[in-house]
């Protein structure tokens, strides 16, 4: 058996799993200190389905902790951003477009040094160890405790990032954490560097949180390894989280989507997760969320790390309904739903009231919505269905038919069939889909590089790149026999002769729970 836990801003959901089967799922309020919520969630599971600590083989946790810490600019380490690329890139130094407040919160220092590569892997300039040591001395003098190192075209060749880390590490010692950009993001220097700096700023907190999570699980008598889920739906072990907390940032929607896939039995489908304030629409392809191709702003900073492509609509259970236009949201009563909605004796017409009036949900006092005109109620529901249907249509990548799965507490707002898409599946355990999603143990490896492909060499290049991604997944802990390529993308680069092509490959396999 294993346990999946999703620690959200409002609820901590947990699921006890036997393989892909959900034995029991529970919802619990998230506690201020998080760990006691986890302890309570685990004992809640145990109360419904008894297990011994030794029977649990793994605990998978999805958490919004790190992104919340960043957004609130709390408990961030004094951080340095070091970029290798001189004489290139000088006009736009690290942190160039950051909000001042966040720069202040991480007591940011920015450094430029020689190094970096061209698109085809030739060096721009060699690194200068003396220059790096001088920067490191300055970091020490300024109380820097975490360093983000980026290098031009490090997705093509990351040797210099590794070498610079060694030199900086020699000066600053083991107490200073170092994050490398090629481990974090993709091509697009500023965005990759930004994500790396964010990661660096969270490293001290990561150690604390991982210690806390581990203690909470161990307190329940469970000795099994603990994993955290990443933005792309794969897992990382504790030591990886300590080094790359940024990879947990968008695990919330990812976990919901993955859970929806498992409980519905579909690996390629559109998922609608309806909560209190928003409906998030995403696309699962071969069991994994499609990732966004665009830059994503996090706490006002442009980044390009791996995030699920999610379209959020302001439609949820708490959305306020306009009585004149029959339009829903984006304003929501949020957590005040239990006092403000009509069915709870309040005076705000919410989407939940509409669901109750239509007989789709049985919450609160039905008589409080008896006065609503059935034609109006239908108009509101039709409008919701239309907007959701339109959002799903925007998300899909081809006109081929696609199944739609709905999860989350607010999914009662959705009809049983949607225009364009037909039946909407509402699987069992839909309310804890995110915890179930967190529990699905898979690990992955990704390659994203620019290749200059010689005539006739395309096939061989692709075979080599795919093999490299598989190796990376195995190195991350995947059982070799289960690894497969789940994503392949080849984009020719304009204005470059010699068929320069950017290739992205992702391999994923089951977590080797023995290892």
């Amino acid at each position, binding site marked *: 058996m294993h346990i999946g836990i999703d620690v959200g801003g409002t609820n901590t959901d947990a699921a006890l799993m036997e393989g892909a089967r959900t034995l029991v799922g529970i919802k619990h309020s998230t506690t201020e200190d998080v760990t006691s919520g986890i302890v309570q969630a685990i004992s809640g599971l145990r109360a419904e389905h008894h297990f011994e600590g030794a029977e649990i083989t793994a605990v998978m946790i999805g958490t919004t902790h790190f992104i919340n810490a960043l957004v609130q600019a709390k408990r961030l380490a004094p951080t340095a951003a070091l970029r290798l*690329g001189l*004489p*290139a*890139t*000088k*006009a*736009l130094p690290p942190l*160039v*477009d950051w909000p001042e407040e966040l720069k202040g919160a991480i007591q940011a220092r920015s450094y430029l040094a020689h190094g*970096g590569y*061209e*698109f085809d892997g*030739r060096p*721009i*300039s060699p690194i200068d160890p003396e220059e790096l040591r001088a920067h490191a001395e300055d970091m020490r003098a300024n109380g820097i405790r975490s360093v983000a190192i980026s290098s*031009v*075209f490090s997705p093509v060749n990351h040797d210099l990032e590794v070498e610079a880390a060694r030199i900086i590490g020699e000066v600053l010692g083991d107490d200073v954490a170092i994050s490398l950009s090629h481990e974090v993001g993709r*091509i*697009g*220097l*500023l965005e990759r560097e930004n994500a790396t700096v964010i990661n660096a700023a969270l490293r001290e907190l990561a150690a604390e949180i991982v210690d806390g999570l581990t203690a909470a699980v161990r307190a329940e008598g469970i000795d099994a390894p603990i994993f955290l889920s990443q933005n792309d739906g794969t897992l990382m072990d504790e030591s990886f989280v300590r080094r790359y907390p940024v990879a947990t940032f968008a695990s919330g929607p990812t976990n919901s989507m993955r859970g929806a896939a498992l409980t519905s039995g579909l690996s390629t489908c559109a998922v609608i997760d309806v909560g209190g304030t928003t409906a998030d629409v995403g696309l699962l392809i071969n069991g994994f969320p499609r990732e966004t*191709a665009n830059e994503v702003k996090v706490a006002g900073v*442009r980044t390009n790390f791996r995030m699920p492509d999610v379209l959020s609509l302001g439609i949820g259970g708490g959305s306020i309904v306009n009585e004149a236009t029959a339009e829903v949201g984006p304003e929501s009563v949020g957590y005040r739903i239990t006092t403000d909605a009509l069915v709870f004796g309040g005076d705000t017409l919410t989407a939940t009231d509409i669901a109750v009036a239509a007989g789709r949900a049985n919450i609160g006092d039905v008589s409080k919505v008896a006065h609503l005109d059935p034609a109006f109620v239908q108009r509101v529901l039709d409008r919701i269905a239309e907007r959701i249907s339109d959002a799903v*249509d*925007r*998300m*899909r*990548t*081809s*006109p081929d038919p696609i199944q739609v799965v709905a999860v989350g507490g607010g999914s009662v707002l959705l009809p049983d069939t949607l225009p364009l898409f037909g039946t909407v599946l509402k699987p069992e355990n839909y309310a804890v889909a995110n915890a179930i999603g967190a529990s699905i143990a898979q690990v992955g490896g990704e390659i994203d590089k*620019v290749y200059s492909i010689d005539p006739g060499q395309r096939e061989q290049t692709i075979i080599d790149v795919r093999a490299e991604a598989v190796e990376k997944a195995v190195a991350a802990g995947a059982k070799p026999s289960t690894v497969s390529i789940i994503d392949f993308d080849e*984009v*020719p*680069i*304009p*204005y*470059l*002769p*010699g*068929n*320069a*092509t*950017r290739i992205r490959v992702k391999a994923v396999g089951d977590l080797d729970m023995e290892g």
Partner: protein
Amino acid sequence: MSWTIKLEDIDDLARGSALLGTGGGGDPYIGGLLAKEALRRHGDVTVVSLDEVPDDAVIACISMLGAPTVMVEKLPSLDEIMSPVQELSEHYGRPITHLMCIEVGGVNSTIPIAAAAAMNLPLLDADGMGRAFPELQMVLPTLYGVSASPLAYADEKGNIGVLRTINNAWGERIIRVAAVEMGCSIMLSAFQMNGVMARKALVPDSLTLCAALGRSIVEARVAKTDPVDGLVETLGGRSLFGGKVVDVERATTAGFARGRATIIEGDSTFTLSFQNEHLMAELNGVVLTTTPDLIMVLDFESGEPITTEGLRYGQRVRVISAPADERWHSPAAIEMVGPRYFGYDTEPTRFDGSVRAGVPIADSDGIA
């Protein structure tokens, strides 16, 4: 009238130039940041209209040449932007007095702003195209016999070259090879001319237009009015189509990204053909507009311009066309940038769907 580019104008300018880039021109974000950094460090830039520029001015362009995809990784430095201009000055033995944009499109509208700020030089409110095209020789000055060479080019490492070619098409061939060797993103200063020639050969008021277009997109969004209507009116163009992208095919041939996008609405099928820039628009197989007139693709709701690289399935888009500078329709220009040059076997079709031959440049001189 001269005016000043300030920090807060850059976003509008970058957005407007992304629009006039007709799908090409690279990442407006990086170009915008670069201009902002330069203005922050060196102060505002004075923009001078063509009728104010002195007859004996020494004008040259500064632009980026290479792969935008490389530029988002190997960001430029201001030294790299200044050095080819300085090199050209040395070559002439006299200082460059004014900078200009070779095209209004993507990064090549914002890089000259950065250079003008860093070098404290005035920038012309004009450019060599009134839009964006992919090759060096594809500028109106070529039609007036202005030589691109001597042209100076530089990389960020400090390598600099000065090149003399027998014509501008040769300039393109040679510089493209050099650009790859130098890391695929280089800076170029060329097309030196005086004020008299600039008045003849350039497209006037293009930066003013860029800023106005960018501003109108934002203003429409704030006022919740249709951003496209305002653009069509400002550009004197027409709205071609609105619908959903259902297919995008791409292939790289000879270093250029060619492709076709299919957009549908109801029973109508609209096809966009592009090669870095959008070059031909067809509705149900009938050609609506081709290069050299402008074809622009915008996000259906926000009105944000969409680059050819950014086109993907499922997007709701609007497509509009607008007239290019009339001189682009002269026979010599059509030979250089018309649909047949890019491999589309069709008549050059104007923004309004008509097929009208233009007059030769020598005769059209007066309209400049």
